[in-house]
């Protein structure tokens, strides 16, 4: 479901830690339908203020960045810097989880 401005409106339940574990194990590739829904919500927020990765060294180092809240978009480097794209992806997942549930993801 989507609201009037196009945001997907699936409610994220902070108890769905199994989905977070699934994502951590395999950030890219096939996911269960439940995780697909969760990721669709995370990945379809408005572009303003959204996280992305700044290529700080060609295909070997990525720095967490955010789009500015207004257009034209400006990159805001917020860090940290990663040398693994999977780690960067997991870090963004955790930040979005917290933003959507209001709770930090407690996972070892």
């Amino acid at each position: 479901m989507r609201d009037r401005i196009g945001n997907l409106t699936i409610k994220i339940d902070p108890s769905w830690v199994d989905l977070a574990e699934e994502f951590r194990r395999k950030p890219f590739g096939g996911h269960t339908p439940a995780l697909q829904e969760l990721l669709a919500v995370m990945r379809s927020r408005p572009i303003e203020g959204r996280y992305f990765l700044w290529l700080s060294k060609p295909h070997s180092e990525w720095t967490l960045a955010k789009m500015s809240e207004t257009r034209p978009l400006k990159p805001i480097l917020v860090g940290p810097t990663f040398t693994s794209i999977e780690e960067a992806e997991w870090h963004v997942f955790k930040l979005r989880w917290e933003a959507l549930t209001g709770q930090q993801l407690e996972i070892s």
Partner: protein
Amino acid sequence: MIAIMGYADRRSVRVGELIQFKVSLDGAPVYKATVVRLLSPQTFPAPHAPEFRFDPMPCPFNGEHRGQNHGIPAGSYAEIPAHPKLTRLTTCTLAAFVWPTTPDKGEQAIMGNGDGPAGLGLVIDAEGRLALAVGAHRYALPRKLRQRRWSFVAAAVDAAAGTALVYAREVELFQFDVLGPLQQHFDRVPRPTPSERPFRIGAQSDRARAIRHYNGKIERPRVLGRALTYSELDRLALAGPTGPAHIDAIADWDFARDISSEVVRDVSPNALWGTTVNLPTRALIGSNWRAERHDWRAIPEQYGAIHFHDDDIYDCLWPTAFELTIPDGWKSGAYALRLEAGECEYWVPFFVRPKKGQAKARCAFLVPTCTYAAYANFRSRVEGRWNELYHGRVTVLDRTDFLMEEYPDLGSSTYDPHSDGSMTLYSSMLRPVTNYRPTGRIYKFCQDMFLIAWLEHAKIDYEVVTDDDLHDEGVDAISDYACVFTGSHPEYYTTRMLDAVEAFLRDGGRFMYLGGNGFYWQTAYHPTLPGVVEVRRGGQLFLASDVVGESNFSFTGEMAGSWNRVGRPPNLICGVGFDTQGFDTCAGYRRSQASRDPRAAFIFEGVDEEIVGDFGVLMGGAAGYEIDRYDVNFGSPRHALLLASSYGHSNIYDFAALGFTDLVPKLNEGDLDPLRADIVFFETPGGGAVFSVGSIAWSGSLSWNNFDNNIERITRNVLKRFIDPTPFQMPDGA
């Protein structure tokens, strides 16, 4: 912040021919220029990807240069050269049909000869109202023009009496909520002073510059030699945009004429013709379109609207910084002008061909420059909301990607909306193109450098030809070669390009389609202007807000859309056609029984594995990004051998398969097996043959394990046989 950018006047140049480079530098006094031969892309660290390599070429202008910022003159308009009948307008009537898309963006010029305190014009004022402008004075109607609604608008000036009449009336076109005529009379209007500037439609002069760009459509603008009365204006509004020149016309521009060109024809006896600047969009439905026919060639009089955009850009018109006549002895291949300023780097690639009639290699890389043009400045990759969703990954961007945000006038690709929300239909290479480089995202040009890296590593004697050449020269561009192979994504094809490849195959040519989602969109080059393509989606792309009735190219008149829709599916030329896409992971291929057929023995020589390409620099496989499948229902030849099919694609590949109608596909991986890339081989009746891999990611596997792998072997086997002159025989029964 320092920014260096550039472009060239062409993408393809023969030895002995001239290429010109344009450079603009912002934020620094000097930059460094070096011409290099490109040998591989900037990609992942070893061991599986090639090292980034480029060789400096001896060139007289290699070295440091002083630079300056030349700016980008974005925004389209029509311009009629200064003529006394238009520069000295006093008593007159200005009239047109308009369909404004951003009436509230600030003052916009509809038409006029205004330049600072001089001249007069018809404008949308700062409050979104129709107004007469006389010098700095504004005489506005009390109501706003409505967005995306046709109105007849006019201003009649009586200079002797010092009066003016401003008039607007919405055009009735199926709607029930049309606003009727509104007029306002003004006294004490000063006499318009002469202007020395050209008459402009869609923008206003500020000395030589164009300012106050209008967003929206304009149809049948007229300048009449006397001040029309209210009832005369009413009659003109109801008469519509068609018909012969008005009896009082000083100028009467009929945009329904010369639709494929830059010409703006004045049908009055004064013949005050003009030209469009920066390619505003033509062949769009006008105020009188009745939704009965959908091809502008049949009823041009209902397609007499031109859509002007404040972000249209055809040619940046920067002065030539360097020109280079390609010296004898330079090998055919990929080259670039490398520009450096501070920490900023910019690449201007170009391709060198041998002199005409002097091709020596047996094979050629057909570089998909038409596709590069369609994607030029793919703004949605930075700004687009759905990018991350259908890529299945957090978006990765670098400084060069953000140049489009720092310099919005760089314009958009055919995947992006204009600033007013209408779709971009024209895309030019005569501007800096931020995604045409051997660095950054490994896609399009950058990925095609993998193929160059392999050709160099394998010491294959090759030459290059571009899509631009294939379109210009037809089959002659490739007929010297035994074998031609494509890049990773030859998605955009004109009729002439398809005809040329087909003629090449009928004459015994061999064709290796080493990519995915190829030959997909019908495309048009401009009939006279170099370096610009037109794409219309025919309502077939979820990103594109196509307008019904506007699915024929303005450049050629041909029906636009996918080649499937047009009636010439990619399967006919290469045996496979687009299946789906996904950019999160790539897969391997499983060989079929047909791969053991003696006809395919040469392909799999030295390849014992059942699974091939289950590795690669691009997301771990040779099959992925965008993939194609064999399907006789779309014209894949029945005698083709379906050699292998990919398997195990992720659910992200489900988005495109669903037609992007559902943003949350919910299939399990096992359900997705029908989505696949197919490797196909078939012979043609003239002794030729086709080999297709149906996957963009293929070339990303060539370099795996220091170029020692089954994808490399298969590609080399096919190329070796394809340059052998021994004719292929059609199989029995085919």
